[in-house]
């Protein structure tokens, strides 16, 4: 089964990649819609733009946040995120055909591959919390981006705290 899907993917890759200097399409990542939050007024004002993470996802439960934040060097879900987990668990159990990716992330410190493994610990902590509440594991894929996709640029605890996270993405 696995073998077969691997082969078919390999064939797709062969067809797609027949010239050197392979160039990928930009489409896959999603456009990342921006919500402008300008304060207006001063000519020197800068309107901060926040990338709406929901632009990359299909609709999940309405009014339930999708991002779980973690403490430094920690992979346990803090109590304040339990209601978030509960909300997604209820939705997934009521909609057994829906599937999610849980994308784990770390801050910028340390090696790329080791951070990938640390981000995986975060996404799997969220996966376990959901399955403990009765969500079918087949609806969930826990993956990691390590430190490759920070939510906040920059160095220092403020940025790092925003980057230590797991995002729930509905497919």
């Amino acid at each position, binding site marked *: 089964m696995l073998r077969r899907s691997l*082969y078919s993917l390999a064939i797709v*890759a*062969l067809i797609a990649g027949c010239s*050197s*200097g392979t160039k990928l399409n930009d489409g896959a990542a999603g456009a990342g819609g921006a919500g402008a939050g300008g304060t207006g007024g001063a000519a020197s004002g800068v309107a901060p733009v926040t990338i709406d993470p929901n632009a990359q996802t299909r609709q999940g439960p309405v009014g339930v946040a999708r991002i779980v934040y973690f403490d430094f060097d920690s992979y346990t879900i803090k109590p304040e995120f339990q209601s978030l987990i509960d909300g997604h668990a209820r939705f997934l159990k009521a909609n057994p055909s829906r599937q999610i990716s849980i994308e784990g992330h770390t801050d910028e410190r340390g090696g790329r591959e080791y951070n*990938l*493994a640390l981000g995986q610990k975060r996404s799997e902590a969220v996966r376990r919390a959901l399955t403990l509440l009765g969500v079918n594991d087949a609806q969930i*894929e826990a993956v990691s981006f390590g430190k490759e996709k920070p939510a906040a640029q920059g160095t220092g605890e403020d940025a790092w705290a925003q980057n230590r996270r797991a995002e729930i993405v509905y497919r």
Partner: protein
Amino acid sequence: MNNTLLPSIRSFPAQPLARRSLLAALAASPALPALAQFRVEVSGVGLTQLPIALVPFKGEDASPQKISEIVKADLERSGQFRGVDASGQSMDENARPDLTLWRQRTADSLVAGSVTRLADGRYDVRFRLWDVVRGQDLGGQSYTVPQADLRLASHRIADYVYEKLTGEKGIFSTRLAYVTRAGGRYTLWVADADGENAQAALASPEPIISPVWSPNGGQLAYVSFESRKPVVYVHTVATGQRRLVANFKGSNSAPAWSPDGGTLAVTLSRDGGSQLFTIPAGGGEPRRLTQSSAIDTEPTYSADGGTIYFVSDRGGSPQIYKMSAGGGNPTRVTFSGSYNISPSVSPDGRWLAYITRTGGAFKLQVMELASGTVTSLTDTSADENPSFAPNSKLIVYATQLQGREALMTTTLDGKIKARLAGKAGDIREPDWGPFQKQ
């Protein structure tokens, strides 16, 4: 490329260059933005360096590449040579050098040559190496190359000189792979060992990490996030053909080639947790190597293929372990510090390079495996991802300089470092390719 020996006291077999077909194939592809004129900045002073004079090659002024300068930069970057002033002199490979003059300039050896454009547009490059102290002709070679291979011919000259004078094989005609991030796009590059002549192998809007050369130098395995999760590809550089080798549920990462090229060790989370597996390089079912509830990742094979070094936090903090390549009981290799990652074993099996965290800084270190003696090699604080040159004499690694990601090479004593400084964006994830088939 024809590679002919000039009459000399010793003979080397004449062999064609295997890279000609590759370069021709890449040249035929749609032009991608040319990157990165790299610059060598040697900092630090070595103890014993051989003084060598590189006389400007006859015809070099009209050549698109300054052969003598490329050879000189190669030799200096090795840490074992010091260029001697050759200004105001002109001679080619046929002239007998004025030994008195060169001894006065304190050169122990001398390279002179010529570069000539042929009627068919190719170039004829010739050189001869002299031992100035003994007044001895140490031989020379000639190469007939297309313009695109003039740098390669220069690196071959540096390899010849390096091997004649140090007794060790040179690595100047090998290749590096690395990744840049610029303007939100990621590009995987293949470049000469001096960082120049970079050619794009893959461009993507999503991150690319962990490229590693196959043992025959023809393929790269790497991790791409183009499908919004990490999956492992094997990419044939000359054709651009790509093959997914690990795309299982969860994350797929950290590829490492077995020395025979038949197997990839990878980190998969398909069973939960990050664990080591092997997978046939041509694709197939993975076999699980480690059974722990901890993180096991960053596998790398010893040169004999018998041992896998890897990172595990099974003892409470990330440390480097080793085990039989078929799996089995791991034993711990690093003991000092609470964070040791990214192991790279030298091809001669003597050294282990890795990154350690000390006081919030990430530093490149090298351990002599026989004695366990550890040497810290850098003054920078965000070092990553070391990779040995195939002759085990240099390490390339990523670091941050003035807030930008950069690549550096260092000798194993840390005394000679060179920056491979590109213009376009952040440069990271270097991997040093094997010796090229000649």
